[in-house]
Every structure is written in structure tokens, then in C-alpha cells.
């Protein structure tokens, strides 16, 4: 396992400006979520800046640790390409240009916010967008539901947040360490019996 630690520093490392531009392009052209899929296509398949294995390892980091996933992933890729400066370029590229667009839209929206038709259309967009998160939620729930303990953890988390409307900080602060602790004990047990 240890020698899979492949040091893929490409011979021609992309310039910092190129890193910023590449991430800005991803940020500005990907709609409706699924940015990690776009990033894999762009950086692994098209540009071959990093290997697929490295990308997936970064994806696991981005998803299992706190923080905005795609920003985490941008930091990871930038970091592997050009260290700290690369990480900064990746994060700025994926956040700042779309942010400028969002602020522009919000400013436009405040001019027409009294329109009933627009409000109805946006309510429809919001309802459809729930499909995006439900799809992700169902996929994660299917993984969690394979065993009893994760299923219970998932159910308690859902009930506490949705039905009891408890603050996220309390719920995650209690459930995450508990769940990680149980996973740790189970890993140790399977490794001891293996």
C-alpha cells in the first residue's frame, strides 16, 4: 500500500495563472451541482494534470472533512500542482468569478422581486433543485443503510434536524464523533479477527 504514494509532479507544471483560469472556467460553466464530475473530466482526462488515483484520494478528503467540497477539491488539486500558491489559485478560481456573477444576479433580482410570475418560476426551480440533493442523499443513505448502526445514526441525524429542528452544530457535534468512534472500533475488530 505504501508505495502507491506516487509523486506525480508533471514535468511541465502549469503556471499559477493557468491554474486560476482553469478553475474559473469550471466555476463559471458548471450549473446545478456535480462540480466534482466536471473537475475530474477537466483535470484528469482532458488536461492530465493529475492522475485519477490522486484525484479520487483528494475527493475522499474533500468529502469526508469539513468544508465546501468543491473548494476543498480545488485546494487539493492546486496544492498537488504548485503547493500553497497553487492551492490559493484553485480556491480563488472556483469561488470568486461565480461569486461576482451571483452578486450581479442578486442585484438584478432586487429590481424585479415584486413580480409574482418570477417568484412562482423560482419556486419551481427550487422544487426541482431538491431532486439534486435528494439524489445525493439517497445514494449516501443506501451506503449507510447496509448496516444497523450507520442506519440508526442516519435516522437520528435526520429526525434531530428535520423534525426537532435542532441546530446543526449540536447535532453534528454529537453525532460525528460518536459515529467515527463506532467505525473505529469496528475497523479494529475486523482487523483483529482477520
Amino acid at each position, binding site marked *: 500500500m505504501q508505495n502507491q504514494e506516487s509523486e506525480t509532479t508533471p514535468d511541465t507544471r502549469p503556471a499559477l495563472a493557468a491554474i486560476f483560469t482553469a478553475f474559473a472556467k469550471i466555476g463559471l460553466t458548471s450549473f446545478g451541482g456535480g462540480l466534482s464530475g466536471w473537475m475530474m473530466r477537466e483535470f484528469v482526462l482532458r488536461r492530465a494534470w493529475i492522475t485519477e488515483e490522486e484525484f479520487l484520494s483528494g475527493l475522499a478528503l474533500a468529502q469526508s472533512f469539513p468544508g465546501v467540497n468543491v473548494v476543498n477539491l480545488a485546494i487539493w488539486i492546486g496544492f498537488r500542482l504548485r503547493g500553497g500558491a497553487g492551492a490559493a489559485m484553485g480556491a480563488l478560481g472556483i469561488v470568486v468569478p461565480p461569486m461576482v456573477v451571483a452578486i450581479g444576479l442578486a442585484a438584478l433580482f432586487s429590481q424585479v422581486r415584486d413580480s409574482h410570475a418570477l417568484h412562482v418560476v423560482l419556486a419551481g426551480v427550487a422544487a426541482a433543485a431538491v431532486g439534486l440533493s435528494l439524489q445525493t442523499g439517497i445514494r449516501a443513505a443506501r451506503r449507510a443503510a447496509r448496516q444497523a448502526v450507520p442506519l440508526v445514526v*442516519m435516522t437520528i441525524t435526520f429526525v434531530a434536524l428535520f423534525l426537532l429542528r435542532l441546530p446543526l452544530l449540536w447535532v453534528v457535534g454529537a453525532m460525528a464523533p460518536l*459515529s467515527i468512534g463506532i467505525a473505529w472500533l469496528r*475497523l479494529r475488530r475486523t482487523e483483529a479477527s482477520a
Partner: protein
Amino acid sequence: MNLKNLGDLLAVFAPLSFLTVGGGQSIVSDIHRQSVAVHAWMSDGEFLDLFALSRITPGPGSLLVTLVGWQVAGLAGAVVASAAIFLPCSVLVYGLAHLWSRYKHTAWIRAVEAGLVPVAAGMILAASGTVLRAAEGGAWAWSVAAVSTLALMFTRMNPFLMLALGGAFFWLVLA
């Protein structure tokens, strides 16, 4: 400029920055709770408008936070809220990037990965429910959400097209 509002934005979003486990979807329920119930920055309807806008804006879904900041305190609010949601976790993950490449196959990393999956699943499901509960259109909203979930799970449909269809459908039925 209202400094208290900027301080509130910072106090709400900087902690949430560390809780965005399993995708930006997971903190939507708390953004809603803080914006509508705790701070009364906006109504359910206004929150829903911003949520929808954040979905049709390119880039990370967490830009919802930028829009909330804009609503609360204009440009300064947008900048402060964005910095609060993106900066703290970025610094943390940058530090973790060093550790991660060194320890990725060890037991504690795998325990963290496995342990966070069910928590993230519960968070994402709760976030979906929260948006639907705030949604106007009642049964129509639940139907559109169900159809779009099924379409995304079983077809290769472009999600952005899905959003456009949802908006068009509501316009036809409810406007």
C-alpha cells in the same frame, strides 16, 4: 453600513464553514433556520427565492450564502458572508492536505471516512425536506421534487435542464 449585521453574518457562517460535510446541501437547513427563524433576515418565500437563484447561478451551491449576505447587508454583506463560509474550512483543509497524502491508508482516516457517511446522509435528507417544507405550491412542489429526483437517478438528463423544466412547469400551473 450596519456593523452588527456584518458581525451576525460572520458569527452565523464561520461555524457553518466547518459543518459542510457531504456537500453544500447539508447546511441548507441551518442557513434556513438562522436566516428565517433566528435572525428574521427574511421570510420563507424570500429564502426560497435566494435558494432557487443560487441553483441557477454557476459555481458552488454554497453561493447561497453570498446571496443571503447580499440580502442582509448589500455588497459588504455578500463579501463578509462569502469569506466566512469559504475561508475557515479552506485553511483547515489546506493543513489536512499535507497530512492526508501521508496517512491516507491508515485506520483512523478510514474510520473518519466511514463514520461521516451516515451523518452526511441524514444531513442531506434533512436539507431536502427543509427546502420542501418552505416551498410554495404544496403538493406540486413535492411532485416536481419527486419527478426530478427519479429523472436524475435513472436518466442522464442534464441537471440544469431539470431546473428549467421545474420553473417552466410552475409557471404554467401556478402563475
